[in-house]
């Protein structure tokens, strides 16, 4: 496919994805003690659905969206041609290999390289989708390593509410439900901060954005 057509197709598909996401979820962004800014940031979010980064991507203002790349597992995104196209051309994902035994590059290196080009990133520090009853899984160390090695980059917690009910694991058709995406105040690892303490602090900053447990439970 010629590059011009490919990039046009990517933009149209990106637009269609946003329209579809809004149709199904009427997603609304809530910025609490936090502002949409163009500075370099790492957005870190809870992960319950494959559509999570699409929802964040949808609510970011267009100028910020254009310079924000999700970090995603290549094992998922290289599975079909459509997924590869969405992953590489539409959302321009930073693809990392999550299988330690099969990979030849260190994921952290890939992530830091991407940050050094000046873009913002979306990461899911739980490392995998949370299909448990727990609101959040223990964070992997990646988010700590990013903050220690690139201390100038702000970490912004992002709570995605309800998307797991829109499309539970194994269901093919999404059901329309209202979703919200809540952005919290940025955090950073202090110089010499302990890894465990920081991961707990980052996890708490994210949990603080979650709405009270609903009466429906």
């Amino acid at each position, binding site marked *: 496919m010629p590059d011009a057509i490919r990039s046009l197709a990517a933009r149209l598909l990106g637009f269609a994805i946003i329209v579809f996401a809004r149709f199904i979820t*009427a997603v*609304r962004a809530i910025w609490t003690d936090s502002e949409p800014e163009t500075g370099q940031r790492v957005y870190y979010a809870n992960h319950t659905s494959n559509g999570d980064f699409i929802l964040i991507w949808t609510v970011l203002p267009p100028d910020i969206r254009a310079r924000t790349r999700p970090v995603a597992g290549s094992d998922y995104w290289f599975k079909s041609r459509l997924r590869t196209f969405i992953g590489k051309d539409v959302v321009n994902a930073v693809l990392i290999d999550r299988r330690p035994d099969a990979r030849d590059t260190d994921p952290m290196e890939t992530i830091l390289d991407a940050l050094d080009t000046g873009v913002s990133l979306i990461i899911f520090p739980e490392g995998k989708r949370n299909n448990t009853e727990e609101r959040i899984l223990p964070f992997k160390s990646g988010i700590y390593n990013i903050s220690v090695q690139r201390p100038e980059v702000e970490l912004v917690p992002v709570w995605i509410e*309800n998307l797991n*009910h829109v499309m*539970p694991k194994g*269901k093919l*058709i999404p*059901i*329309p*439900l*209202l979703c*919200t995406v809540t952005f919290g105040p940025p955090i950073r690892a202090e110089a010499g901060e302990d890894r465990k303490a920081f991961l707990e602090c980052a996890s708490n900053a994210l949990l603080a954005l979650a709405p009270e447990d*609903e*009466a*429906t*439970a």
Partner: protein
Amino acid sequence: MTDARSDFMILLGGIGAILIVASLIGQTLALRAGPEGPGKGIQNLNARIAAWWAMVALLAVAFLAGRTGVIILFAFCSFAALREFVTLTARRSADHWAIATAFFAILPAQYYLIWIDWYGLYSVFIPVYAFLLLPVIAVLEGDTQKFLVRISGLQWALMITVYCASYVPALLSLEVDGYEGRAILLIAFLVVVVQLSDVFQYTWGKLIGRHRIAPSLSPSKTWEGLIGGVVSATAVGAALWWITPFTPLQAAVLAFAITIAGFFGGLVMSAIKRDRGVKDWGHLIAGHGGFIDRLDSVMFSAPLFFHLTRYFWSTV
């Protein structure tokens, strides 16, 4: 009898004039607010007025597009309202296929039946056939926990947000002698009277409201607001007799009936919000909350208005 479209344009002009006055008052209040900017109440007022403009514009476009435009508009309203309702009730993945069926099969089917004007089926489709089908789909998942609550919640959601709301475009199928081609104005009458009644109740309540009707449900609903609102909206309804097939007295009686139904609709939907622990149904319309917050009174009054008109005036 004048052309339906020209009558509609006169009505639209009147609503536009009211909105212009409201906008001027809102902007003046905002400008006079001083250095700290306008207070919450004035900001909310202006957000509401802005949303009113958008809603009137949308309704006007749909009306001018004719029957198909109105049916599509209300199908989308039902979709948005059902999305809000299910958000507050659905939580279990065992209901996934039942809910997907409600959204993607039942809802379009109901509006299709309205479109082809099959009264015999659309009047029983959701109360009987969705009622029987959805629990069958849900039960196949084998999750019995809170089964009755879950399945009743979904049926209730469909009844109010799809079935009742679809009676608004269903008005287009009524045929009254000497009123041919003007049924779209019945929708304008219903929507204008019921929505104005909400505004009047709110305004009278703010101005002279003292005695609360149901403090446990809604702190803003007062007897003064209700009586003032119903009397004002009934008067407006009577004054709008010229767009309807009714005499001024008949128009007043119908306006009275639908404002009372609308009031109780608001009360019932407040009770559901209280039960779910939320203040608004959604966040889609700035200053108004969700679609259901705006449409609750219309959804309760539409079937009543349809059947009263059908029984006493329609020839079909």
